[in-house]
Protein backbone atom coordinates (compact mmCIF):
# COMPACT_ATOMS: atom_id res chain seq x y z
CA UNK A 1 0.00 0.00 0.00
CA UNK A 2 1.39 3.36 -1.01
CA UNK A 3 0.28 5.32 2.04
CA UNK A 4 1.33 2.99 4.83
CA UNK A 5 2.04 5.16 7.82
CA UNK A 6 5.59 5.10 9.13
CA UNK A 7 5.12 7.72 11.78
CA UNK A 8 6.60 6.95 15.16
CA UNK A 9 4.88 7.52 18.46
CA UNK A 10 6.23 11.06 18.82
CA UNK A 11 4.76 12.03 15.45
CA UNK A 12 1.47 10.40 16.33
CA UNK A 13 1.41 12.28 19.63
CA UNK A 14 2.05 15.55 17.77
CA UNK A 15 -0.80 14.79 15.36
CA UNK A 16 -3.14 14.00 18.22
CA UNK A 17 -2.24 17.26 19.94
CA UNK A 18 -3.22 19.14 16.79
CA UNK A 19 -6.42 17.14 16.67
CA UNK A 20 -7.25 18.21 20.23
CA UNK A 21 -6.78 21.84 19.19
CA UNK A 22 -9.01 21.24 16.18
CA UNK A 23 -11.71 19.77 18.42
CA UNK A 24 -11.47 22.76 20.79
CA UNK A 25 -11.79 25.14 17.87
CA UNK A 26 -14.84 23.29 16.56
CA UNK A 27 -16.51 23.60 19.97
CA UNK A 28 -15.97 27.36 19.97
CA UNK A 29 -17.64 27.61 16.55
CA UNK A 30 -20.77 25.90 17.95
CA UNK A 31 -21.93 24.80 14.48
CA UNK A 32 -20.13 24.12 11.21
CA UNK A 33 -20.98 23.51 7.59
CA UNK A 34 -18.16 21.59 5.90
CA UNK A 35 -17.52 21.84 2.18
CA UNK A 36 -17.20 18.12 1.56
CA UNK A 37 -15.71 16.34 -1.44
CA UNK A 38 -15.25 12.84 -0.04
CA UNK A 39 -11.48 13.28 -0.26
CA UNK A 40 -9.01 12.54 2.53
CA UNK A 41 -9.06 15.98 4.15
CA UNK A 42 -12.70 17.04 4.05
CA UNK A 43 -13.84 13.57 5.10
CA UNK A 44 -11.61 13.71 8.16
CA UNK A 45 -12.84 17.21 9.01
CA UNK A 46 -16.50 16.27 8.55
CA UNK A 47 -16.10 13.19 10.76
CA UNK A 48 -14.33 15.08 13.56
CA UNK A 49 -16.91 17.87 13.37
CA UNK A 50 -19.70 15.28 13.63
CA UNK A 51 -18.02 13.69 16.65
CA UNK A 52 -17.43 16.98 18.44
CA UNK A 53 -20.61 18.89 17.61
CA UNK A 54 -23.16 16.17 17.00
CA UNK A 55 -25.30 15.50 13.95
CA UNK A 56 -27.45 18.62 14.20
CA UNK A 57 -24.57 21.08 14.43
CA UNK A 58 -22.21 19.63 11.83
CA UNK A 59 -23.44 19.48 8.27
CA UNK A 60 -21.46 18.32 5.25
CA UNK A 61 -22.33 19.60 1.80
CA UNK A 62 -21.20 17.81 -1.32
CA UNK A 63 -21.06 19.78 -4.55
CA UNK A 64 -21.72 17.57 -7.58
CA UNK A 65 -20.86 18.72 -11.05
CA UNK A 66 -19.41 17.51 -14.33
CA UNK A 67 -15.91 18.22 -13.02
CA UNK A 68 -16.19 15.79 -10.09
CA UNK A 69 -15.50 12.11 -10.82
CA UNK A 70 -18.73 10.21 -10.38
CA UNK A 71 -17.06 7.40 -8.45
CA UNK A 72 -15.74 9.89 -5.90
CA UNK A 73 -19.21 11.27 -5.26
CA UNK A 74 -20.53 7.77 -4.71
CA UNK A 75 -17.78 7.05 -2.14
CA UNK A 76 -18.44 10.39 -0.45
CA UNK A 77 -22.12 9.59 -0.02
CA UNK A 78 -21.39 6.09 1.32
CA UNK A 79 -18.85 7.41 3.84
CA UNK A 80 -21.21 10.11 5.12
CA UNK A 81 -23.96 7.55 5.53
CA UNK A 82 -21.67 5.13 7.39
CA UNK A 83 -20.60 7.89 9.79
CA UNK A 84 -24.12 9.25 10.34
CA UNK A 85 -23.19 12.64 8.94
CA UNK A 86 -25.98 14.98 7.86
CA UNK A 87 -25.08 15.21 4.18
CA UNK A 88 -26.64 17.67 1.79
CA UNK A 89 -25.96 17.49 -1.93
CA UNK A 90 -26.02 20.49 -4.23
CA UNK A 91 -25.40 20.75 -7.95
CA UNK A 92 -22.89 23.34 -9.02
CA UNK A 93 -22.53 24.68 -12.53
CA UNK A 94 -19.02 26.05 -12.75
CA UNK A 95 -18.70 24.57 -16.25
CA UNK A 96 -21.35 27.05 -17.41
CA UNK A 97 -19.25 29.99 -16.19
CA UNK A 98 -17.28 31.19 -19.23
CA UNK A 99 -14.47 32.43 -16.99
CA UNK A 100 -14.03 28.89 -15.68
CA UNK A 101 -14.64 27.17 -19.01
CA UNK A 102 -11.91 29.24 -20.68
CA UNK A 103 -9.52 27.36 -18.37
CA UNK A 104 -7.17 30.13 -17.25
CA UNK A 105 -4.40 29.40 -14.75
CA UNK A 106 -6.68 30.68 -11.97
CA UNK A 107 -9.56 28.42 -13.06
CA UNK A 108 -9.86 26.99 -9.54
CA UNK A 109 -10.76 30.43 -8.23
CA UNK A 110 -13.91 30.55 -10.37
CA UNK A 111 -14.89 27.00 -9.42
CA UNK A 112 -14.53 27.67 -5.70
CA UNK A 113 -16.28 31.03 -6.00
CA UNK A 114 -19.31 29.27 -7.50
CA UNK A 115 -19.22 26.66 -4.74
CA UNK A 116 -18.98 29.13 -1.86
CA UNK A 117 -21.62 31.35 -3.46
CA UNK A 118 -23.97 28.41 -2.91
CA UNK A 119 -22.69 27.04 0.40
CA UNK A 120 -22.31 30.28 2.39
CA UNK A 121 -25.95 31.40 1.99
CA UNK A 122 -26.96 27.80 2.63
CA UNK A 123 -25.07 27.86 5.94
CA UNK A 124 -26.87 31.04 6.93
CA UNK A 125 -30.27 29.51 6.09
CA UNK A 126 -29.46 26.39 8.13
CA UNK A 127 -28.17 28.40 11.08
CA UNK A 128 -24.60 27.15 10.78
CA UNK A 129 -22.22 29.66 12.33
CA UNK A 130 -19.07 28.72 10.38
CA UNK A 131 -18.24 27.43 6.94
CA UNK A 132 -15.07 25.35 6.71
CA UNK A 133 -13.10 23.51 4.07
CA UNK A 134 -10.52 20.72 4.08
CA UNK A 135 -7.46 22.75 3.13
CA UNK A 136 -4.50 21.27 5.00
CA UNK A 137 -1.12 22.68 6.01
CA UNK A 138 0.61 21.26 2.93
CA UNK A 139 -1.85 23.09 0.70
CA UNK A 140 -0.55 26.45 1.84
CA UNK A 141 2.37 26.12 -0.57
CA UNK A 142 2.10 25.71 -4.31
CA UNK A 143 -0.36 27.05 -6.87
CA UNK A 144 -3.77 27.25 -5.13
CA UNK A 145 -5.91 30.03 -6.62
CA UNK A 146 -9.02 28.46 -5.07
CA UNK A 147 -7.82 29.67 -1.67
CA UNK A 148 -8.54 33.25 -2.69
CA UNK A 149 -12.23 32.46 -3.17
CA UNK A 150 -12.35 30.84 0.27
CA UNK A 151 -10.77 33.93 1.82
CA UNK A 152 -13.27 36.22 0.09
CA UNK A 153 -16.15 34.18 1.52
CA UNK A 154 -14.66 33.96 5.03
CA UNK A 155 -14.41 30.20 4.74
CA UNK A 156 -12.25 28.78 7.51
CA UNK A 157 -9.53 26.17 7.00
CA UNK A 158 -9.02 24.64 10.44
CA UNK A 159 -6.80 21.76 9.30
CA UNK A 160 -4.31 24.27 7.94
CA UNK A 161 -4.86 26.56 10.92
CA UNK A 162 -3.65 23.88 13.31
CA UNK A 163 -0.84 22.72 11.04
CA UNK A 164 -2.28 19.33 10.16
CA UNK A 165 -0.38 17.91 7.20
CA UNK A 166 -1.67 15.38 4.70
CA UNK A 167 0.42 12.64 6.29
CA UNK A 168 -0.98 13.42 9.73
CA UNK A 169 -4.54 13.51 8.41
CA UNK A 170 -4.02 10.11 6.82
CA UNK A 171 -2.68 8.77 10.11
CA UNK A 172 -5.55 10.17 12.15
CA UNK A 173 -8.02 8.91 9.53
CA UNK A 174 -6.49 5.46 9.75
CA UNK A 175 -6.93 5.55 13.53
CA UNK A 176 -10.65 6.15 12.92
CA UNK A 177 -10.82 3.39 10.29
CA UNK A 178 -11.93 5.89 7.70
CA UNK A 179 -11.83 4.33 4.22
CA UNK A 180 -10.23 7.50 2.90
CA UNK A 181 -7.01 7.19 4.88
CA UNK A 182 -5.16 5.50 1.99
CA UNK A 183 -7.16 7.09 -0.79
CA UNK A 184 -5.13 8.86 -3.49
CA UNK A 185 -5.66 12.58 -3.86
CA UNK A 186 -8.50 13.23 -6.28
CA UNK A 187 -8.58 16.74 -7.66
CA UNK A 188 -11.30 17.74 -10.08
CA UNK A 189 -11.33 16.36 -13.61
CA UNK A 190 -10.58 19.78 -15.10
CA UNK A 191 -7.09 19.49 -13.64
CA UNK A 192 -6.36 17.01 -16.44
CA UNK A 193 -6.94 19.61 -19.17
CA UNK A 194 -4.05 21.96 -20.07
CA UNK A 195 -4.65 25.61 -19.27
CA UNK A 196 -6.13 27.45 -22.22
CA UNK A 197 -7.91 24.39 -23.59
CA UNK A 198 -11.62 24.96 -22.89
CA UNK A 199 -13.21 22.85 -20.17
CA UNK A 200 -16.31 21.23 -21.64
CA UNK A 201 -18.71 18.64 -20.30
CA UNK A 202 -17.65 16.37 -23.17
CA UNK A 203 -13.96 16.53 -22.29
CA UNK A 204 -14.67 16.00 -18.58
CA UNK A 205 -16.86 12.99 -19.32
CA UNK A 206 -14.20 11.58 -21.64
CA UNK A 207 -11.56 11.82 -18.90
CA UNK A 208 -13.90 10.31 -16.31
CA UNK A 209 -14.70 7.37 -18.61
CA UNK A 210 -11.02 6.77 -19.39
CA UNK A 211 -9.96 6.83 -15.74
CA UNK A 212 -12.82 4.56 -14.71
CA UNK A 213 -11.86 2.12 -17.48
CA UNK A 214 -8.26 2.12 -16.30
CA UNK A 215 -9.34 1.57 -12.70
CA UNK A 216 -11.36 -1.40 -13.89
CA UNK A 217 -8.08 -2.90 -15.18
CA UNK A 218 -6.89 -2.95 -11.58
CA UNK A 219 -4.79 0.21 -11.52
CA UNK A 220 -4.77 1.45 -7.94
CA UNK A 221 -3.07 4.47 -6.43
CA UNK A 222 -2.33 7.68 -8.25
CA UNK A 223 -3.68 7.85 -11.78
CA UNK A 224 -4.44 10.69 -14.16
CA UNK A 225 -5.51 10.80 -17.79
CA UNK A 226 -4.22 14.10 -19.12
CA UNK A 227 -6.23 15.43 -22.04
CA UNK A 228 -4.18 16.62 -25.03
CA UNK A 229 -6.94 16.87 -27.64
CA UNK A 230 -6.84 13.61 -29.59
CA UNK A 231 -4.17 12.14 -27.31
CA UNK A 232 -4.55 10.85 -23.76
CA UNK A 233 -1.38 10.92 -21.67
CA UNK A 234 -1.60 8.42 -18.84
CA UNK A 235 0.25 9.17 -15.62
CA UNK A 236 0.46 6.34 -13.11
CA UNK A 237 2.73 5.28 -10.28
CA UNK A 238 6.30 5.07 -11.65
CA UNK A 239 6.73 1.64 -10.10
CA UNK A 240 4.00 0.31 -12.40
CA UNK A 241 5.42 1.57 -15.69
CA UNK A 242 7.44 -1.55 -16.54
CA UNK A 243 4.39 -3.75 -16.08
CA UNK A 244 2.15 -1.59 -18.23
CA UNK A 245 4.76 -1.28 -20.99
CA UNK A 246 4.70 -5.03 -21.57
CA UNK A 247 3.03 -5.36 -24.97
CA UNK A 248 -0.06 -7.27 -23.91
CA UNK A 249 -0.64 -4.93 -20.97
CA UNK A 250 0.00 -1.80 -23.04
CA UNK A 251 -2.68 -2.97 -25.44
CA UNK A 252 -5.14 -3.21 -22.54
CA UNK A 253 -4.38 0.41 -21.67
CA UNK A 254 -4.89 1.44 -25.27
CA UNK A 255 -8.17 -0.40 -25.61
CA UNK A 256 -9.52 1.05 -22.36
CA UNK A 257 -8.64 4.63 -23.22
CA UNK A 258 -9.70 4.45 -26.87
CA UNK A 259 -13.09 3.18 -25.74
CA UNK A 260 -13.44 6.47 -23.86
CA UNK A 261 -13.05 8.41 -27.08
CA UNK A 262 -9.34 9.17 -27.43
CA UNK A 263 -7.67 8.27 -30.71
CA UNK A 264 -4.10 8.26 -29.46
CA UNK A 265 -2.75 6.95 -26.14
CA UNK A 266 0.62 7.63 -24.54
CA UNK A 267 2.20 6.62 -21.25
CA UNK A 268 4.14 9.26 -19.36
CA UNK A 269 7.68 7.95 -18.83
CA UNK A 270 8.21 9.71 -15.52
CA UNK A 271 4.93 8.62 -14.02
CA UNK A 272 2.43 10.46 -11.87
CA UNK A 273 3.22 13.98 -10.73
CA UNK A 274 0.83 16.04 -8.67
CA UNK A 275 0.23 19.32 -10.48
CA UNK A 276 1.85 17.93 -13.61
CA UNK A 277 0.12 20.38 -15.92
CA UNK A 278 1.25 23.29 -13.75
CA UNK A 279 4.81 22.20 -14.53
CA UNK A 280 4.05 21.69 -18.22
CA UNK A 281 2.55 25.16 -18.50
CA UNK A 282 5.35 26.78 -16.53
CA UNK A 283 3.00 27.87 -13.71
CA UNK A 284 5.36 26.22 -11.23
CA UNK A 285 9.01 25.22 -11.62
CA UNK A 286 9.87 21.79 -13.02
Amino acid sequence: MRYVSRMDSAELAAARLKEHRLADWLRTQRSVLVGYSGGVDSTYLAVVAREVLGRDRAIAVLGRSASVPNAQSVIAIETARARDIDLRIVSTTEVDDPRYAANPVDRCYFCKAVLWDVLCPMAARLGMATVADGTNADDLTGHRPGAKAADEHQVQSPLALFGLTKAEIRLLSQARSLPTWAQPSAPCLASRIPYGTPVTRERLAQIDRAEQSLRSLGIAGDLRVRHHDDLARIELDAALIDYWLEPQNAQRLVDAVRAAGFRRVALDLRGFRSGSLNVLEGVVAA
Partner: protein
Amino acid sequence: MSDLAARLSEQGDDYRVEARERLAILVPQTGSSPDVERRKEILKLAREEGFTHVALELDPDGARFPGS
Protein backbone atom coordinates in the same frame (compact mmCIF):
# COMPACT_ATOMS: atom_id res chain seq x y z
CA MET B 1 14.59 15.37 -37.24
CA SER B 2 14.33 17.11 -33.88
CA ASP B 3 17.37 17.49 -31.68
CA LEU B 4 15.92 15.04 -29.18
CA ALA B 5 15.19 12.46 -31.88
CA ALA B 6 18.72 12.85 -33.19
CA ARG B 7 20.26 12.42 -29.77
CA LEU B 8 18.12 9.37 -29.09
CA SER B 9 19.06 7.95 -32.46
CA GLU B 10 22.75 8.35 -31.63
CA GLN B 11 22.13 6.06 -28.68
CA GLY B 12 20.26 3.51 -30.79
CA ASP B 13 16.70 4.57 -29.94
CA ASP B 14 14.52 5.05 -32.99
CA TYR B 15 11.71 7.46 -32.18
CA ARG B 16 9.88 10.19 -34.01
CA VAL B 17 9.49 13.08 -31.59
CA GLU B 18 6.32 15.12 -31.65
CA ALA B 19 6.82 18.29 -29.63
CA ARG B 20 3.79 19.93 -28.04
CA GLU B 21 5.38 22.87 -26.28
CA ARG B 22 7.23 21.27 -23.34
CA LEU B 23 5.72 17.83 -23.85
CA ALA B 24 7.64 15.38 -26.04
CA ILE B 25 5.60 12.52 -27.45
CA LEU B 26 7.85 9.70 -28.54
CA VAL B 27 6.42 7.69 -31.40
CA PRO B 28 8.36 4.42 -31.55
CA GLN B 29 9.58 3.35 -34.97
CA THR B 30 10.46 -0.12 -33.68
CA GLY B 31 8.61 -2.43 -31.34
CA SER B 32 10.76 -2.35 -28.21
CA SER B 33 9.88 -0.49 -25.01
CA PRO B 34 12.50 1.28 -22.89
CA ASP B 35 13.45 -0.32 -19.59
CA VAL B 36 13.87 1.74 -16.45
CA GLU B 37 17.50 2.68 -17.19
CA ARG B 38 16.70 3.72 -20.74
CA ARG B 39 13.76 5.77 -19.48
CA LYS B 40 16.05 7.62 -17.10
CA GLU B 41 18.42 8.41 -19.95
CA ILE B 42 15.55 9.50 -22.23
CA LEU B 43 14.18 11.78 -19.53
CA LYS B 44 17.64 13.27 -18.96
CA LEU B 45 18.13 13.99 -22.67
CA ALA B 46 14.62 15.43 -22.93
CA ARG B 47 15.26 17.78 -20.00
CA GLU B 48 18.44 18.96 -21.69
CA GLU B 49 16.36 19.71 -24.79
CA GLY B 50 13.87 21.77 -22.77
CA PHE B 51 11.08 19.25 -22.30
CA THR B 52 9.42 18.86 -18.91
CA HIS B 53 7.31 15.84 -19.87
CA VAL B 54 7.95 12.79 -22.05
CA ALA B 55 5.30 10.28 -23.06
CA LEU B 56 5.63 7.15 -25.14
CA GLU B 57 2.82 6.60 -27.61
CA LEU B 58 1.32 3.14 -27.37
CA ASP B 59 0.11 1.36 -30.48
CA PRO B 60 0.69 4.27 -32.86
CA ASP B 61 -0.20 2.09 -35.83
CA GLY B 62 -3.61 1.47 -34.30
CA ALA B 63 -4.13 5.23 -34.06
CA ARG B 64 -3.18 5.77 -37.68
CA PHE B 65 -5.25 2.87 -38.93
CA PRO B 66 -8.24 2.59 -36.59
CA GLY B 67 -9.90 -0.78 -36.74
CA SER B 68 -6.81 -2.48 -38.13
